[in-house]
């Protein structure tokens, strides 16, 4: 179905100017407001943002899981060249769990508590492929072994509550991988896990993506996880991507004041006994948000120019910043006199 005439590697997913709004009784919530990005095969994209920045809704929009009163009002989502924004429910059902799969934050609610793991996994497989039950069970067993679950033949017969938190998240990752998806959207899958378990899950996911050329979108609030995992990063704030680029670009040479503040907020060994470079104020409510730069009320560089919507400026391949006053060349908080 894909045109073979493209020169470069065709991205697995390409999103352009996506707008997903929620029309609530008290007003319009612009959860995703003009987001564009693309992920190539085998590439890992980290989407970083705080609560309410629209990072989850972006993923939900791709999967066609946005429910009323929300809908995609504008923009395109091209999956391997096929337009799937506002695609028919029938087409989306074919894609979900097949070519595109999702791993949710809370595996306890993502798995069906009254069905055994084998039932759920076989169902997922047979919904997309014509294979026998026995073959499906074999694939399921192999998949559990691959995500590092010991004695998979026994564990297949377990119910979700019989697994520990880390194991349960692995089961849901195994289920997401069952049909060899081209794209996995992982929505904070390790946030509820301990460091040791998180490391195990990250290890398995990273390995699988590199081996099979699966594209991965990793949605998280944790920049440190993205640092160890992703190839490129989009930083979201109030429904917009404020900065994007490779991991090294974003972490070593951040230019948007919000990214700089976010990095300064992370405690580490270097900050011991000193105050963190905090961002003042709180994340804005997205309800009836005012036009202009959404970060301006918390920004130390804001001027009257920021009353208008800053355009996205590009600095080379895949590197964008959406700010009137980007901090160029390592200009840091100190210069702004905000480092109390």
């Amino acid at each position: 179905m894909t045109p073979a005439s493209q020169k470069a590697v065709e991205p697995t997913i390409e999103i352009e100017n996506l707008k997903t709004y929620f029309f609530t009784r008290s007003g319009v919530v612009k959860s995703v407001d003009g987001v564009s990005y693309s992920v190539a095969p085998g590439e890992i994209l980290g989407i970083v943002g705080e609560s309410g920045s629209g990072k989850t809704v972006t993923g939900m929009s791709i999967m066609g899981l946005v429910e009323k009163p929300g809908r995609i009002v504008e923009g395109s989502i091209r999956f391997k060249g096929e337009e799937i924004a506002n695609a028919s429910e029938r087409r989306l059902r074919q894609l979900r769990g097949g070519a595109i799969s999702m791993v949710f934050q809370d595996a306890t609610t993502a798995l069906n508590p009254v069905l055994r793991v084998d039932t759920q996994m076989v169902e997922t497989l047979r919904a997309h492929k014509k294979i026998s039950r026995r073959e499906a069970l074999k694939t399921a067993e192999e998949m559990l072994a691959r995500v590092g679950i010991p004695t998979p033949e026994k564990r297949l017969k377990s119910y979700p509550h019989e697994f520990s938190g880390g194991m349960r998240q692995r089961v849901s990752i195994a289920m997401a991988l069952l049909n060899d998806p081209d794209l996995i959207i992982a929505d904070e899958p390790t946030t509820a896990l301990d460091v040791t378990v998180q490391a195990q899950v990250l290890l398995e996911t990273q390995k699988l993506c590199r081996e099979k050329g699966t594209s991965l979108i990793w949605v998280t609030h944790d920049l440190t996880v993205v640092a160890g995992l992703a190839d490129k990063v989009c930083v979201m704030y109030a429904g917009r991507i404020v900065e994007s680029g490779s991991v090294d670009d974003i972490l070593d040479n951040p230019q948007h004041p919000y990214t700089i503040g976010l990095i300064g907020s992370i405690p580490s060994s270097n900050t011991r006994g000193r105050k963190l470079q905090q961002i003042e104020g709180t994340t804005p409510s997205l309800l009836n948000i005012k036009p202009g730069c959404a970060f301006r009320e918390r920004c130390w560089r804001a001027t009257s120019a920021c009353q208008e919507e800053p355009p996205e400026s590009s600095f080379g391949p895949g590197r964008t910043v959406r700010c009137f006053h980007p901090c160029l060349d390592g200009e840091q908080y100190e210069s702004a006199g905000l480092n109390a």
Partner: protein
Amino acid sequence: MRSPETALAAHPLVRLKNVSKKFTRELDLAARLAQKLGVDINEETVHAVNGINLDIHKGEVVGLVGESGCGKSTLGRVVSGLLPASTGEIEFDGETIDSAASCKRPKDLALRIQMIFQDPYASLNPRMRVGEIISEAPRVHRIVPPKELSAYVDRVMEQCGLDPAYKSRYPHQFSGGQRQRIAIARTLAVKADFIVCDEIVSALDVSIQAQILNLLLDLKQELDLTTLFISHDLGVVEHVSDRVAIMYLGRMVEFAPTEMLFSNPQHPYTRSLLEEVPSLDKRNMSYSAIEGEIPSPFDPPPGCQFHPRCPFATAECRTVAPELQVLESGHTFACHHPQGEIAESQ
């Protein structure tokens, strides 16, 4: 660094002596009947906290780290007096306040020990106004004269970065970070000098987390607060703590001044924990996770409890539980095969 040497000289503000907490799952009727009939069924006991000795000095922040289920929150609740200890003693300011025999604390001492919880959405009464939440305890305990109460609450709110104009609002009108400020103000209002913080920043966004950590640092310097800071986030603990204790399955496996623990960890568990902490400097890393999972606390492994997951385990570790060793530097650990560099004098 705030010199721990000088602090160590004085007597500790809080001293835990061999504190343990057991939870027993009672048998149901059927099981009791079966037991009467001679079936081999026993009550299941979890040693959530097992023989903890810990000194916390005035003005110090002690970090308490461990995976979920290691007993760190239970220990916090025992210290703050919400749960009685099963065995052991707790001393506060030189006086024994809890022992196995009695855990009725004198009121003035009980007030000086306060706790802040993880979820600021659950720990504030949704039907009380913020002013009432903060002023209730000082009013009941007559900490300030009734006439000065209102001004007192204003002052405490300002101290915590809250606008006193918000006094008549309800908790749901505040964001998560502001609610955590309200919870902090509530503990300060009773003039607490020892605060148990149980995962107080884990539910907050990164930028808000930084604000709360900065507030704690300010308050510590201003009021000379002593804190037991419980968290699973090693980055946060390293940032705030003077000394750090690592717990595993109810026992303390390592305890040392922060710099020492992070630069020269002795216990293999601590080492692997530290390796797995994601940080901004670790790019495109290949993770090397600890094998396996925490064993069930109902049936902990014999000997050193970490041995099933430990790459250095020997026959000794499978049978003999290691004792806590204390190095001269104050570095404490429980391991037969410590991995870090140990000073020659040992």
